[in-house]
C-alpha cells in the first residue's frame, strides 16, 4: 500500500492534473501510518511548479497542505478506531 501510494504520488506530480495529486495525498495520509514522505512530495510539487509569485503571492501551498493533512490525519487516527 505504501509503495503503491508513493508511486501514484510521483506519477501524479509529474503527469497528472493537481486535482489527481490532492486526493491521493490526503488518502495516503489517512491510510498509511506515519506517511511522512508526503511532505517531501508537497515540497517537490512547489519546487517544480511554483514561481516566486506563487498563488496570490504564496508559493508554498502544497508544502503547507501536505503538512496540514499529515497532522490532521495523525490526530484523527489517534482518536478513531481504525
Amino acid at each position: 500500500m505504501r509503495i503503491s501510494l508513493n508511486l501514484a504520488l510521483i506519477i501524479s506530480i509529474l503527469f497528472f492534473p493537481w486535482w489527481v495529486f490532492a486526493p491521493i495525498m490526503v488518502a495516503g495520509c489517512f491510510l498509511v501510518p506515519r506517511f511522512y514522505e508526503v511532505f517531501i512530495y508537497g515540497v517537490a510539487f512547489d519546487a517544480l511548479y511554483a514561481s516566486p509569485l506563487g498563488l496570490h503571492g504564496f508559493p508554498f501551498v502544497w508544502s503547507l497542505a501536505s503538512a496540514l493533512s499529515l497532522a490532521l490525519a495523525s490526530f484523527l487516527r489517534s482518536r478513531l478506531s481504525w
Partner: protein
Amino acid sequence: MRTCSYKTKMTYLRRSNVQAKKNRATATLIVAGLFGVFLVQYLFPTFYAGLFAPIASIAWKSESSVLGTIGRMGSIVRSKYSLLTENDSLRREIASRDAGALLLDGLKRENEELKGLLGRARTGRDVVGLVLSRPPVSFYDTLIIDVGSSDGIEVGDKVYAQGAILVGDVSETFGSTARVSLFSTPGRTVSVLFGSSTVQAEAVGKGAGNFEAHLPVGVEVSEGDAITFPHLRAHVFGIVESVSVDASDSLQTILFKAPINMHQLRFVEVETESKVR
C-alpha cells in the same frame, strides 16, 4: 458518645509521563523540521527546484517523446479516406487565409523597418521551446519548457504562443529547462492597454489565461476588443470577453482572456534579450 469516622482511600495508578514526553519531543522535532524546510525554501527559492527539476525533466522529456511516437503510430493507422478529406478542407482553409497572411507579413515587415529607422529595431532572437508541463498539471499557472540557460534563456524573457500571443515571462532558468510564469497567474497584476484607445489599466490574473480589470464607465470598451501589453514587439495579449456595468458603480468590470487555450499549449517562443522595452 464516641463517633467513628471511616475515611476511604482511593488508589490511582500513576500515569506514566514517558510516553507523553516522547510524543511532545516527536511533535517538536517535526515542527522544527517543517520550519527548517520552509526557511530553506524562503531564503534560497531555487534550492529545491534545482534539486528536483533535473530529475523531473528526464521524466517529462521521455513522456513527450513517447506521446510523439504514439501520435505518429496513430496517424499511420488512420484511414486513407479521412486523411484525403482532411487534406482537402485544410487546403481550402489555407487558401482562404493566404491573402490575410500576406498582408500581415507585409505590415509586420513595414513595422520592423519603421522601428529600425527610429532606432528601435529588435536585437533579440526567438528560441522555440517545447512545453513539458502546463496547467492543470501545474497548480500555479506556470509552464515548464525544454530550453534553459544553456540556450541563452534568461529570467524576464518574454514568452509568446503562436508567434504573437504574449502569454508570460521566464521566472526561473535551469540548465536545459526553464519555468515560465503566465501573466494570468491568480493574483498577478499586469499593466495592459485596452483596444484602439490604448487606455492603460491594471489587470489581475484569474488563472488559465483569464483576467479581470476595472475601468471608469466613460471609457469605451466593447466585447472583442484587443488587449495589448506596453511592449515594442507587435503582439496580442487578450480579447475582451465581457463588459459589465453596475449602475451604482463608477467603474465597469472587464473580463478578458488570452486568445489561446493554456491547457493545450505545445510550443512557445522565448524572446531573448526582451527585458529592454
